[in-house]
Every structure is written in structure tokens, then in C-alpha cells.
């Protein structure tokens, strides 16, 4: 009992990474906010918090899938902006919503193909798609504006039995990701490929008959699709298309993933850790907003957290 508790808190002997500690941090921050401010522990603020955290949680789960195979997707932020821009195109929803996912899957496909077929480093491949997608987004919508379909707005802002819809979004997305990572053959293959890459034996999974190329391509497609879901959610929240709404999301998702104990070198990580990591980020943002911290300082603090969290991870490879 004590031993397993120790393992959770130290992240040793586990495939799930260190997720117990961030959970403690989250609890401490919440407790501190409850004591310090009167507004924090109200149902309204908590539901608000969930709604604020939801895009990051969704996008971070997508990032997790890619990080598990030792990759990184820097195009997440621009896919989110792109999704909101497409949704605000003034077309019927029945056309726009499928289109958003087809386009996102296509972006993921380009990432995956460039990485697996053309030997491009994941960071370079996704960096270039980030720029291409950002450029297309700016053409579609130079400044924020337009209106997204009613159904998208309704799906985000309503409530059922007193519980706002964002909570249901979270439940559905987390259950789907749980099934994907822990209840499917694909999830097992992800951990297998990532574990091989992390230990320097890049062909380990392939030698056991797991097609790494196809699975890696699929991982990038899934990541982009999760980013698109986050984009749809955000579009519903801001009611318009915004070319800058996804700004810095790629770094926030990486921070959330790393904060949740997932090793960026691949193979070790967990869904619950990532969700906790994203919640910690949202709690911090909420706390800093309540404490009136300048948004510029908030950005700097986020960068510091990223640096600290990733700096504490050890890995063999040097460089990229």
C-alpha cells in the first residue's frame, strides 16, 4: 500500500509517468484559491473553469497521442484557429462540421506522411504545416469576425439538469480517449512504438509485427482531429472565427502533457495525467486572473513552468 503510493508520487516503475504529484499540486492550488478568494469555490466559477479548461484538455489529449510515440505536433494551435475560421464561413452547419474534420485529418495526414515517408523530423514537419495552416487561416479570416452556426453555439452554451454542456463534452472526449488508449489494440501499439523509440530501438515494434508507419500517421491524424474538436468548442464559445485564438496552444498542450508526467521521449504517459496537467494549467490561469496578474507575465510564467517541467525529465537523446 505505502509502496504503491510512493510509486505514484515518484513516478517510478510505471508506464503512466508521474501523475500523482501534479494532482497534489492541483489540489493545493485549489485549496489556496478557496481560502484566498471568495469567488473561487462557487459552482458558477467551477463550471466556468471547466469550460475554460476544456479546449486545452481536448487538444492536450491529442498532443498526448503524438507524444506517446515520441513525436510532437506544433501545428495544434493553427489547426484550432483554422477550425474556427472555417466554421465562421457562413455555410450550413451540415456542410461545415464534417468539412472541419476532413480538413483537420488531411493536415494530420500531411504531417504523418512527411514524417514517415519522407524522413522529415516531426518538429520541422509540424512547424511548416503550422505556418501553412496559419497563412490559409489569415486568408480566410484576416481579423476575427463572422458567425458560427447556431448548433455549434448551442452545443457549448446550454445546460442539462443544471449541468452545463461543457462538462458533458469533457466526459465524452475523455471516455473516447480512454477507449482509444487503454481499450483498443491501437492504444497498445502506441505505447509499444513509443517505448521502442524512447529506448533507442526504433524498429523494436516493427520487429514484433506492429506497423509503425501506419500507426504514426494515424497518431498525427488523431491529434489534428482532437485539435479540431477543441476548435469547434472554442468557436462555440467565442461565437465567431478568430485567426489568433489558437495562439500558443501548441506550447500549452505540450506543457499540459509534460506536467501530467508524460515523457516527451515517448512510451511513458497517461490520459489521467494529461487531464490533470491541463486542469493545473487552467487552475493557474484562473488563479492568476483572480489575482490580477498581467497577461504578459502569465505568458512568461507558463514558459517557466514548461521549462521547469520538461527540464526535470531525463532522457538519453541530446539535442532536438
Amino acid at each position: 500500500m505505502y509502496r504503491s503510493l510512493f510509486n505514484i508520487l515518484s513516478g517510478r516503475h510505471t508506464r503512466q509517468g508521474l501523475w500523482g504529484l501534479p494532482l497534489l499540486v492541483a489540489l493545493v492550488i485549489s485549496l489556496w484559491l478557496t481560502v484566498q478568494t471568495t469567488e473561487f469555490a462557487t459552482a458558477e466559477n467551477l463550471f466556468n473553469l471547466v469550460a475554460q479548461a476544456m479546449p486545452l484538455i481536448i487538444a492536450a489529449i491529442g498532443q498526448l497521442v503524438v507524444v506517446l510515440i515520441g513525436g510532437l505536433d506544433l501545428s495544434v494551435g493553427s489547426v484550432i484557429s483554422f477550425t474556427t475560421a472555417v466554421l465562421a464561413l457562413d455555410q450550413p452547419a451540415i456542410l461545415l462540421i464534417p468539412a472541419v474534420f476532413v480538413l483537420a485529418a488531411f493536415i494530420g495526414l500531411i504531417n504523418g506522411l512527411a514524417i514517415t515517408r519522407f524522413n522529415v523530423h516531426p518538429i520541422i514537419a509540424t512547424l511548416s504545416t503550422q505556418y501553412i495552416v496559419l497563412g490559409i487561416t489569415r486568408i480566410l479570416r484576416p481579423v476575427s469576425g463572422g458567425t458560427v452556426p447556431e448548433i455549434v453555439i448551442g452545443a457549448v452554451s446550454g445546460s442539462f439538469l443544471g449541468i452545463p454542456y461543457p462538462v458533458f463534452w469533457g466526459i465524452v472526449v475523455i471516455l473516447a480517449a480512454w477507449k482509444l488508449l487503454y481499450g483498443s489494440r491501437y492504444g497498445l501499439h502506441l505505447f509499444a512504438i513509443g517505448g521502442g523509440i524512447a529506448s533507442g530501438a526504433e524498429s523494436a515494434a516493427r520487429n514484433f509485427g506492429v506497423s509503425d508507419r501506419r500507426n504514426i500517421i494515424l497518431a498525427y491524424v488523431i491529434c489534428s482531429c482532437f485539435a479540431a474538436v477543441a476548435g469547434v468548442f472554442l468557436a462555440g464559445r467565442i461565437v465567431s472565427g478568430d485567426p489568433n485564438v489558437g495562439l500558443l496552444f501548441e506550447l500549452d498542450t505540450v506543457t499540459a502533457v509534460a506536467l501530467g508526467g508524460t515523457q516527451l521521449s515517448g512510451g511513458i504517459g497517461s490520459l489521467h495525467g494529461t487531464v490533470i496537467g491541463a486542469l493545473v494549467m487552467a487552475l493557474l490561469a484562473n488563479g492568476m486572473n483572480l489575482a490580477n496578474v498581467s497577461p504578459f507575465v502569465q505568458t512568461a510564467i507558463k514558459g517557466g513552468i514548461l521549462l521547469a517541467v520538461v527540464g526535470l525529465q531525463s532522457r538519453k537523446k541530446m539535442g532536438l
Partner: protein
Amino acid sequence: MAAVLANPIARRLLRIPPSYFVFLVLLATLWIARPNMLNLNVMGIFIRQIVPLGILVLGQLVVMRVKSIDLSGGGIILLINYFISSGSFPGASLPFFVGLALATGLVIGLFNGFMVGSRRVSAVIVTLAVSIILVGLVQFLSSGNPPGDVPKLFNDLYNTKFLSVPTPVLFWILLTAAVSLLLSQTVFGRYVASVGENAEAAHFSGVPVQRTVILAHTLAGLIAAIAALVQTGSIAVGSVRVGLDLPILAVAATILGGVVFGRGDGGVWGPFFGALCFALLFVVMTVLGIDEPGKLIAQGVIILGAAIFYGVRVRAP
């Protein structure tokens, strides 16, 4: 495809950095579209504008040769621009600012190098995080507004000419030659080449891999500081947005120049022409009436295209 790649002539062609081809294509495009722009004076002005990028490329090239990357250049440029333009050091002389800038670059570069080399953190994450921390701090210190004016001397120096060639361009060429000599003639240069080729083999051959990576990052920080001084001279005012897209462009120019993480056939002059390509590209796009979004797309396509070009070449038998 494989048969074409195995052809000796095709393989020889694939070894030439893409920047030379792209440079020729852009030159031809400009020549067809606006022949009258191709004179020394006009070109001198355009090339002078990308000197900060060209200098930043030199640092990027060194870190990319050791299979690392440095995206903190934007933050360094912004911070140094803030130091010079905010008036926090009233009455300071030019040597003081140069010294301050170099010290700033040195410290940040050393930090990057320590995190990447000793702590073995992913270089992308470290340098991006450093950059957003610096950008956030500068924007906070200046409350989101441009700080102030730059001492006049900076812009005066930037505008001088030597034998009808703008001094910044001359400075850039000299610095490129210096880095070229550093990489080809010194022990450090050999270390960089061997670490990039195969870090493990280099380690077992007695090459101080960790020290080389740290030094490469420190050098990149120093060079970014020099780029910041030139950039500050060129815009002549304080800014909270200056140079933020330069690191990505520097990566693009370096890849275009044939240096991709480790092995580099492009040497130093391949990336040099990579930076020149961007000078021409911006001219061509302005001439053709393509604006900001188009430039973003072009940057992305160029990075991806050059990286694919390299990836195909590696896989060729």
C-alpha cells in the same frame, strides 16, 4: 522514383543545397517580372534588410550542425532592443550597449546550452520556452507599448556605405567568412562536425560531446545578440514585436541551405544563400502583390519542401 534517385547524376545534383536552385529561380522570376529592379542599388537595400536574419542564420547553422535547434533568437532580439530603446541606461555609450548585448546573448546561450547539453532537455522546448519568457517579460516591462527611441548612432552606423556596398552587408559577409573558418579550420569545428555526424561515435572517439553542444548554443546566443544590434540599428526605434518571426525564418534558411540536423553539405555558404533567397522571396512577393498570409504559407512550404528534399536524399541508396 528509387531508380531515379540511384542515378549518379541525380545523386550529385541532390547534394547541392536547394538554396542555390531557389535563388536562381527567384532571380529569374524577378528578372522577368521587374527587370529594372535588378541593379546594385535596389538590391543593396533589399539585402541590407535581411542582414539580421542572415546573421541569425549563422548561429542557427552551428546549433543545427550538432543536431540541436535554437528558437530563442526572437526573445533575445526583443530583450536587447528593449535594453537599448527603453532608456533604462541613460547616457550609455555605444560600447556599453554592445557589451551589454553580447553579455545578454552569452548568458541566454549558455543557459540554452546547459539545458540542452547537460540536462538533455529537448532543444525546441527549451529555446521556445526561453523565448516566450523573454517576450512576456519585455511586453510586461513596456506594458505592451513600444518603449522609445534608439540612440541615433545605431541608425547612422547602419546607413553607412563602404565602396557603395552597405556596411551591414559587408559585415554580414565578413562574419559568415569567420564562421566558415571557425567550422572548417578549428578543433571546435571538427568537434561540431563529428557530433552532428554521430554523437555516440564522437563520444567514444573522445570528443567532448556535451561541451561542444553547450559551446555551440553559447555561440548561437552571441550571434543572436549581434543580430539584435543590427536589427535595432535598422528599425531605429524600440518595438515589442521586432524579430519575432526571425528564428523560424533562420531555421528555414538553414534547411534551404542544405544543413539539416547533423550532416550538412551546404557548409556555411549554402545557408548564406538561403538567407538571400528570403530577401529575394520577399521582393518577389511584394512585386506580385502577395501579402502577409501568402508569406506565411510560402515559409511553411519552403521549410517542408527543403526538409523533404533532404529526407529523400538520405533514403537514396
